[in-house]
């Protein structure tokens, strides 16, 4: 790439590195085939926490800035060009660069605003959970729609006004004179002002804080300290009996159990449907400089679907995210009772994601299950420990099981069986 831009960006770990390969089947005249370093876990923007969105946006802008200095232009600014590797964002589209012409403005500017700024602003002004909306608008949230959702006060920030409101108002004006020439010439200095301005602006954005059911779950609503200590001890013990490399923690909350394995697992993926919890975990791992925990937002009873052209461009969460051990702690009642899912369905879903399963069974007598049943008819006659074991035995072999002291809850370590 021009004037050492590739070397510069790969040295900083901003751009995925690649090797040139020869493939007789793919080769055609003068073609250069590159094989990028493979990213083990592919995630999509609608699964990211606010901090991940912000990091991805800043990386895009910083790469654009470095490229300008090297005479190249970053022509795409979509978050799908970013993946996360060892806790940091990395740009994966090596072909997104073209020769920079100073008289031309940033061709990816609107894309940047509609993808990055739109999602960040919705999370700042509306709700931490709203990042999921990007599933519906993977090419960017149109400014008209964004403006219709944002509260009126958003307009009072100068940068938001310029990049969103004024842009929407001037969208149909080309800024060209009658003979098709630009009224004012764009320059490198203007480009750098624009990029630097965006960097300062994006770095100052922050997520809207709201109190949710899952906030401080362990600190305030959990049954007792003794329960948490006992469960922690058991989880550690159960996992010490098997060998594993990666862990997938489903319903991770603020990552209490994911954090237990920061030194023993190569990779931990912590998933929760509550954005506040995942944002909290994100700041914990940032403060502790943990590189091997990947926090993701996902509603487990409706995981991210396969989207894009022919539903084949981006795979679904269930097909993509795996772990050697799947943790499903205090999750079963939410799936089985709150979402009416039969044990058999849950067992099949979990069996497809990992070799081992560490699952906590929460019986009907438990106060949390009673809370779920409070305002509805109890139609769950087959929500018993026997039905649970029977259904899961079709997919797993129970290796260990232990009642958690002081509760009726049972912790199981299961191993997938192949029939």
């Amino acid at each position: 790439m021009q004037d050492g831009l590739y070397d510069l960006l790969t040295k900083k770990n901003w751009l995925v590195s690649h090797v040139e390969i020869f493939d007789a089947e793919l080769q055609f005249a003068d073609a250069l085939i590159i094989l990028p370093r493979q990213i083990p876990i592919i995630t999509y923007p609608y699964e990211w926490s606010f901090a991940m969105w912000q990091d991805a946006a800043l990386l895009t802008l910083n790469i654009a800035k470095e490229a300008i200095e090297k005479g190249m232009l970053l022509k795409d600014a979509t978050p799908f060009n970013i993946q996360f590797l060892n806790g940091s964002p990395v740009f994966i589209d090596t072909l997104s660069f073209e020769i920079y012409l100073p008289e031309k403005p940033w061709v990816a500017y609107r894309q940047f605003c509609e993808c990055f700024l739109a999602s960040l602003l919705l999370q700042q002004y509306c709700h931490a959970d709203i990042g999921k909306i990007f599933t519906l608008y993977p090419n960017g949230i149109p400014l008209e729609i964004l403006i219709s959702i944002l509260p009126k006060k958003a307009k009072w920030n100068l940068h938001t006004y310029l990049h969103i409101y004024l842009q929407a108002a001037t969208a149909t004006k080309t800024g060209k004179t009658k003979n098709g020439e630009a009224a004012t010439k764009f320059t490198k200095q203007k480009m750098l002002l624009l990029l630097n301005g965006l960097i300062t602006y994006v770095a100052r954005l922050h997520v809207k804080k709201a109190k949710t059911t899952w906030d401080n779950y362990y600190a305030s609503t959990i049954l007792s300290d003794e329960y948490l200590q006992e469960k922690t001890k058991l989880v550690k013990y159960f996992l010490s009996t098997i060998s594993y490399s990666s862990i997938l923690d489903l319903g991770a909350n603020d990552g209490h159990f994911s954090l237990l394995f920061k030194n023993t697992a190569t990779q931990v993926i912590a998933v929760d449907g509550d954005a506040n919890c995942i944002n909290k975990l994100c700041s914990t791992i940032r403060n502790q400089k943990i590189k091997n925990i990947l926090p993701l937002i996902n509603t487990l009873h409706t995981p991210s679907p396969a989207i894009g052209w022919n539903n084949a461009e981006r795979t679904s969460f269930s097909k993509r995210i795996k772990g050697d051990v799947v943790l499903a702690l205090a999750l079963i009642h939410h799936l089985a009772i709150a979402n009416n899912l039969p044990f058999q369905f849950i067992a099949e879903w979990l069996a497809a994601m990992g070799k081992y399963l560490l699952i906590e069974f929460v019986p009907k007598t438990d106060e949390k299950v009673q809370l779920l049943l409070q305002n509805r008819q109890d139609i769950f006659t087959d929500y018993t420990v026997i039905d649970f074991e029977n259904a899961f035995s079709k997919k797993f072999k129970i290796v260990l099981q232990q009642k958690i002291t002081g509760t009726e809850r049972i912790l199981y370590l299961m191993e997938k069986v192949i029939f």
Partner: protein
Amino acid sequence: MRYTYLYLDPGSGTYLIQVIIAAVLGGMMFFKNGWIKIKSFFIKPKPGNDLKEEDVEEKESL
């Protein structure tokens, strides 16, 4: 589906706004720099400007 932008190429559709933003930010930068110059004219820089107070004390005690 792209509403007002359907028939606009991405570059020309945002040309004007990018020019405006660059001008606004450039103007802000100009005034900011001017203000810093005015301030530095009236306020004399402290001795050892780039050293923190503790550093100065430490240096002096050596």
